[in-house]
């Protein structure tokens, strides 16, 4: 029987990453959905980068940035007493960057068009903007939220390259399931590799299946 702590760690990493992404991704996606700024394409390209970059590029830059010799890594060590590389927090930062487009893009699509129109209507009725967002825009974009949350979660479950480069393979801290599977394969411990792989496969399928099922039930924009 494989050590299941790596699965638990993976789930925690995916959950924390998704929550962080939801908090910073929602306002950013909102801004992108309505802005006419000429910087919009630049921001959009930056956000989409993790889709095309090899994880090793991201991992390499993170390794350098998180080093206590670098300004960011040094500041972190001063402030918290712990290094950012080889820590759970470091993996969260890496995963947030790595899964960024999976949160932003579905949300941005959901916020465009009809939602903006409904918001203008709400504004003409003198509804406060934040109020209108939560009572009009958010419920209308429910499908976008579900897609964004589930894809971010599932994508983080599947993270490997970045963790391999900045994780340091520490049990209960950075040895996530994908790393443990890799190590099991390399040490020819196929029984454990099979068990963990099968669990990840099933969990990932069920997660994605639920999204598609949900999306079938809900139109792209819920009309209120």
């Amino acid at each position: 029987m494989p050590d299941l702590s790596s699965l638990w760690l993976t789930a925690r990493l995916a959950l924390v990453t998704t929550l962080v992404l939801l908090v910073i991704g929602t306002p950013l996606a909102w801004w992108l959905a309505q802005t006419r700024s000429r910087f919009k394409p630049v921001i959009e390209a930056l956000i989409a980068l993790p889709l095309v970059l090899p994880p090793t590029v991201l991992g390499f830059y993170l390794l350098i940035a998180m080093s206590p010799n670098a300004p960011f890594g040094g500041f972190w060590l001063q402030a918290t007493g712990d290094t950012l590389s080889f820590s759970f927090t470091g993996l969260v930062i890496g995963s947030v960057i790595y899964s960024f487009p999976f949160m932003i893009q579905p949300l941005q699509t959901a916020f465009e068009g009809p939602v903006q129109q409904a918001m203008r209507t709400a504004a003409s009725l003198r509804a406060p903007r934040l109020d209108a967002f939560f009572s009009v825009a958010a419920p209308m974009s429910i499908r976008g939220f579900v897609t964004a949350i589930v894809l971010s979660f599932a994508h983080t479950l599947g993270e490997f390259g970045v963790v391999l480069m900045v994780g340091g393979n520490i049990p209960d801290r950075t040895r996530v399931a994908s790393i443990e599977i890799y190590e099991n394969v390399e040490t020819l411990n196929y029984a454990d590799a099979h068990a963990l792989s099968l669990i990840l496969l099933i969990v990932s399928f069920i997660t994605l299946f639920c999204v598609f099922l949900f999306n079938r039930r809900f139109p792209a924009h819920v009309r209120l």
Partner: protein
Amino acid sequence: MTVAVAANFKIALDSLETDFEARTDYKLEAVVGSTGKLYAQITYGAPYDVFLAADQARPIRLVEKDLAAAQSRFTYAFGRLVLWGTDDPAALATSDVKRIAIANPELAPYGKAAKQAISELNLTEATAPKLVLGENVGQAFAFVSTGNAQVGFVSEAQIISLGETEAGLSWRPSADLHDPIAQDAVLLKRAANKAAAIAFMDYLGTEPARDIIAQNGYALP
């Protein structure tokens, strides 16, 4: 001709390659990894001709599995383990050292030797929360050279490649702190009749090759 080489020996192999190619008409290509990883790949039919391991156990197992030519196996070097980043092993227990990089002991003989040395120094408990594992000794080295780990157990060859001033502080465990790192080479079965691979195995035992190996910080058998 493809040589699967344990990460610690990559630097030495680069020099050997230049010399070997100057002496013969053969071309050499290197595949780098931990000894354990390369071993696993070979058991699954990886197209390598020569295996330069960092231990004896895995070449022996390949011979037993009939994947390597028994009479070809020989010890080409004895590796030297170095603690890099400090000249005093007691520093490992201090709060100045946040992270200690070693190669994964399951996969890499240098990692295994590092674990033995830590245990013989009675530092296992003090260092346990600080250990970070590189996939091989090359990654352990990278963790230290990028400053993410303050110290790490690496190979002498890596330190030599840096040059004395660049390398800074280091400390060498005495021979009784870990098993000798006897590094064996073996000719893989698929290359049993391959002239280039046989020539390289022969070359490894010649004086010029032994000189290069010694210059890279290895002891010779």
